[in-house]
């Protein structure tokens, strides 16, 4: 379905209404958004502005009330529950604020998890791929560690490895640095930038300007509408790390 010209994301007039009692909350009111391959987009906005709702739409987790959504050329609104699960597996990588690693499960097993649900058996050796993904995030020596044996930054890097392992078209990160200290935040942003440099399209929901400053484009939501959308000249997280060497080891 994907070809060179298709954008990774194309949202047209996306609306999402929630019925709350007798009232209707308009969480998204006609979102139009196009994200090309290789972009790194920050989605900003105050609490309640609709960021999570937009993220759930992009993540094929939620049904918009109306509008059309093409993900890498695939019309998502036409798909049923199973097909959307398959699409998530094939095209998306998720990074959550709370890491959401499986407890009492090794880093390696956590990273291999998405390949368990790969119906096309795209990857011959899931175990080797999981190792490879972990070394890409700098955790080659933490394969058999359990989440509670890892620092927050390391846990988030395991989660990023898990998001990477299936070679997604789009990496979605919802407040990925929300639970991290400022130094670790920069480290994680350096990792996102490195992955983006390798061609991965990244969308990050954040309310921190500091995080958005590492992205190439900033989209601001207010009350379910896009109120601003402009390119940014990103700071380089790697440079910031070089200037301020680690105080706290991750």
């Amino acid at each position, binding site marked *: 379905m994907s070809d060179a010209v298709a954008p990774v994301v194309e949202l047209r007039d996306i609306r999402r209404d929630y019925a709350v009692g007798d009232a209707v909350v308009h969480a998204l009111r006609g979102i139009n958004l196009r994200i090309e391959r290789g972009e790194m987009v920050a989605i900003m906005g105050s609490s309640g502005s609709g960021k999570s709702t937009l993220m*759930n739409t992009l*993540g094929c*987790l*939620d049904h918009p009330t109306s509008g059309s959504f093409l993900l890498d050329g695939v019309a998502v609104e036409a798909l049923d*529950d*199973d097909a959307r*699960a*398959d699409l*998530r*597996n*094939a095209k998306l990588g*998720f990074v*959550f604020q*709370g890491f*959401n690693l*499986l*407890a*009492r*499960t090794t880093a390696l*097993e956590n990273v291999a*998890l*998405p390949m*368990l*649900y*790969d119906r096309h058996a795209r990857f011959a050796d899931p175990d080797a791929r999981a190792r490879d993904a972990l070394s890409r995030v700098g955790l080659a020596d933490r394969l058999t560690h359990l989440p509670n044996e890892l620092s927050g930054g390391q846990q988030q890097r395991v989660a990023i490895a*898990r998001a990477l392992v299936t070679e997604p078209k789009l990496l979605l990160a919802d407040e990925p640095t929300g639970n991290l200290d400022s130094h670790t935040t920069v480290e994680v942003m350096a990792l996102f930038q490195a992955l983006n440099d390798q061609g991965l399209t990244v969308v990050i929901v954040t309310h921190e300007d500091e995080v958005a400053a590492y992205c190439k484009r900033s989209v601001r939501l207010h009350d379910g509408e896009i109120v601003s959308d402009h390119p940014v000249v990103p700071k380089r997280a790697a440079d910031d790390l070089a200037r301020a060497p680690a105080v706290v080891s991750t």
Partner: protein
Amino acid sequence: MKATRLIGLALRSIRRNPGRSALTMLGVVIGVASVVVMVAIGAGAQAEIQARIDNLGSNMVVITPGAATPGGVSGGAGSFNRLTTDDAAFIAREAQLVSAVTPVVFTRTGISAGGLNWRSTIYGVDTSYQQIRAWQTESGRFFTTEELKSNRKVCVLGATVVKSIFPDQDPVGQTLRLRDVPFEVIGVLATKGQTAEGTDQDDVILAPFTTVQTRLAGHQFIAQLLASAWSESEIPAAMDEVRVLVRESHGLGDRDPDDFQVKDQRQLAQAAQGTTQVMTMLLSAIASVSLLVGGIGIMNIMLVSVTERTQEIGVRRALGARRIDVLAQFLVESIVLSGIGGLAGAAFGTGIAAGLGRLTGWATVVEPSTLGIAMAFSVAVGVFFGWYPARRAAALDVIEALRHQ
């Protein structure tokens, strides 16, 4: 997802929480073990009864006096005993389908010899009794037709009587007194053990019926006639023939009802077998309840597990698991839990049945089919009680599940 993967997933999840998993399985372990033990006791009892039926005698038919009544009680107003030695002789002479027949006269009496006393049942029988009951002599011999005809005071002892009266000596050739009448011991019977009802078959003395009738019983009452059909398949035909012959011997008209009953050994044994079967079923049913309780335990823990692992479910769904994958995961986990519980229960049950057998002397038989059925049941319990929690897991909303703390 492949079944092997699902089972691997389930095993990993079970290992992740070994204490709880063990507790969850415990109910099924106990349930399956008790079913196995109960069935083993029942099967053992039945096997024993079968063995005793087999040594009752070869193709034996039993004729008892008195008409059959709806209540099953024989006799009644106007009916009197008409079974005689003549009937036995008539059957012996006329029957085509009967290989042997003997009257049985019995009386309980005191026995004494060498200062020792005992009470036992004296059976007055024909020489053919040995063949009909398929009863070997262990030493000595059975009495002969000549001894029978001349009312000789000879007897053959069962093992229990020997133990009581001649504890330390060879009884053959000795004399004992039955109600003060001296009898010569000419043989000892092989051990037969207990009947299905628990009577000691070896607590017996056999003597010629002629002697018993004249010397001991003091009456001509014949408790029963025993006959042997030529083969097992001919038992029904032999029973019909015996019935016709006894009616003829009794001079009954066409309209007269039978004043006797003819039964075969299986009919006699059926009651005992039936009781054991009902007992086994009852005990198994009670044991099954504990299996059911074990299943409810699994459902309980699985429901807790689904709640606890809501976020895990959300993550799996986000990463591409379909609802059916989640359903399968939890269902297989429940089945594996109960399956392992069933295996452990089958092993425990087998051990307990063996131990119980050794401890109490009961025969316990653990048949492979019992283990198979127990395993199948525990898997069924896993499916049945795992279904609802698994459905709950699969029905969760992804977004809410992801948000769950």
